[in-house]
């Protein structure tokens, strides 16, 4: 999923589709975090109580990370779509290869 998102960001020209591919990448990362948190490839390096605590910590860490990635993605979508709409109001086409406003 992550690779699809990266290829999409490189290849597509419509900025909204590029944005959707960024969201795809974020979701791929979410899935990875959750799977790792559940199936927990931790190396046992201490007493059993220590390992149990470590396992619980990792489980919670994975989910907390996913929550924060979702929150950041939501904020980023709002601001990014606002930017795209502002650009589109200025010039009536949204072709990415012709967006050279920052060109010196």
């Amino acid at each position, binding site marked *: 999923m992550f690779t699809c998102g990266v290829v999409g960001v490189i290849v597509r020209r419509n900025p909204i589709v590029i944005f959707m591919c960024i969201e795809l990448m974020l979701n791929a990362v979410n899935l990875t975090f959750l799977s790792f948190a559940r199936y927990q490839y931790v190396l046992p390096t201490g007493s059993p109580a220590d390992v149990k605590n470590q396992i619980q910590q990792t489980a919670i860490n994975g*989910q907390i990370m996913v929550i924060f990635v*979702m929150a950041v993605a939501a*904020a980023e979508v709002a601001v990014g779509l606002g930017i795209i709409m502002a650009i589109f109001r200025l010039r009536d086409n949204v072709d990415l290869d012709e967006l050279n406003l920052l060109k010196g």
Partner: protein
Amino acid sequence: MAFGAIAGVVALASLGVVAFNNAIRSALCLVLTFFLLAVLYFTLNAQFLGIIQIVVYTGAIMVLFLFVIMLLNLGGINAVMQKRDPKIIFGGVLGFALFSLVAAQVLLPLQGVTTVRAPDDFGKPEYLGSALFSNYVWPFELASILLLIGIVGSILLAKRRILSPAMDALNAEDAERGVGE
């Protein structure tokens, strides 16, 4: 087993997001991807995150995307079509290289990891809530500030007229340029 089947459809749907020329079809593929990901989260015993995925991603973010696509009328026949051939080939090669790099690092140590080691109440809201408010208070507050900044920023980006006498020069320039129809 169910994970494999659902994950296969997720991979196909994400290929569909990239491959369709029509922006609306890409958006609908993305909706399918998010919904299937929520189902996957449920099979991974993370119920709270599955519901949050449906509500936040499918219900809010994708709706926002579809609104913007239909507002800017980007899905039609006169939409932005793909005509840049060398970039597609380069993108494909790069994607394949990235995939093999990631797969070589990740897939080999993970052969046969099937023992679930997380505790059984892995995805319950109480478990997450107690951790969120005890160990992770700082990131929680910072995330709320970030969301506030996002709200303020998007309102500012959508504003057309700034109503105050001090902004008359800005408003005149806006009117002359034709912004705000």
